[in-house]
């Protein structure tokens, strides 16, 4: 398979409470083997997936926040966050983890691929995507 498509993984759910966030992440990790052009979009309660310092020890849930930090190594080039969803929940980009990215062939580096975007950009990015996986 040589054709490369623009993939977007749309994450709209809180990280815990339902399994959607974790099973979405599993698709991203497996999908890396297919070398597509991958971005993630976090909206609604999905923005909580990227909030720093979560502690799940009391709830007996596996804390998968560290996995998000590795996504740059799994071919994820952009992690967009809907600004309005952040603001509605009293969050700013300072509350979010940073995820680094590096192209091992060109040695191009980006310190943080987590990027807040406004509603117009969300619409445009979705329209530009060829495949939207919705979770």
């Amino acid at each position, binding site marked *: 398979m040589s054709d490369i498509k623009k993939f977007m993984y749309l994450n709209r759910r809180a990280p815990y409470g339902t399994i959607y966030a974790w099973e979405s992440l*599993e*698709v991203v990790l*497996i*999908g890396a083997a297919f070398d597509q052009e991958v971005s993630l979009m976090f909206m609604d309660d999905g923005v909580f997936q990227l909030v720093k310092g979560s502690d799940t020890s009391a709830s007996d849930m596996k804390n998968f926040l560290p996995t998000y930090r590795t996504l740059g190594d799994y071919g994820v080039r952009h992690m967009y966050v809907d600004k309005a969803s952040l603001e509605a929940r009293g969050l700013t980009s300072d509350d979010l983890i940073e995820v680094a990215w590096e192209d091992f062939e060109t040695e191009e580096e980006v310190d943080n691929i987590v990027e807040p975007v406004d509603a117009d950009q969300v619409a445009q990015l979705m329209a530009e995507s060829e*495949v939207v*996986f919705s979770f």
Partner: protein
Amino acid sequence: MKLAVQVNEGPYQHQATDSAYHFTKAALEKGHEVFRVFFYHDGVLNGTRLTTPPQDDRNIVNRWVELAEKYDLDLVLCVAAAQRRGLVDEGEAQRNGKDATNIAPRFRISGLGQLVEAAIQAERLIVFGD
């Protein structure tokens, strides 16, 4: 058009699986190609042959099976999601030491790569969920 369908919800609890079925059936009847139906999350529960709904209700599992028989449709349950939720075929039963299987005919269990491949191969991926 070549389509792929993703089903994210379980049967009966959520109408997404009914919508996915009706969409898939309508697309096939119109002459479109459905490359694969991929069941994820609780969607894998669409693939147990042990389902026994009341007689006056629709049988969601059998409906998929009949559609697959008529159109040679590829019905795939995600293996990771299936293992968590107790969906078992012969291979899984042997690998994991289970004493029974429950997968319905025409369904098969395979990896998430099958979803990604379907998204690449198809012109449109249609996701049914909450």
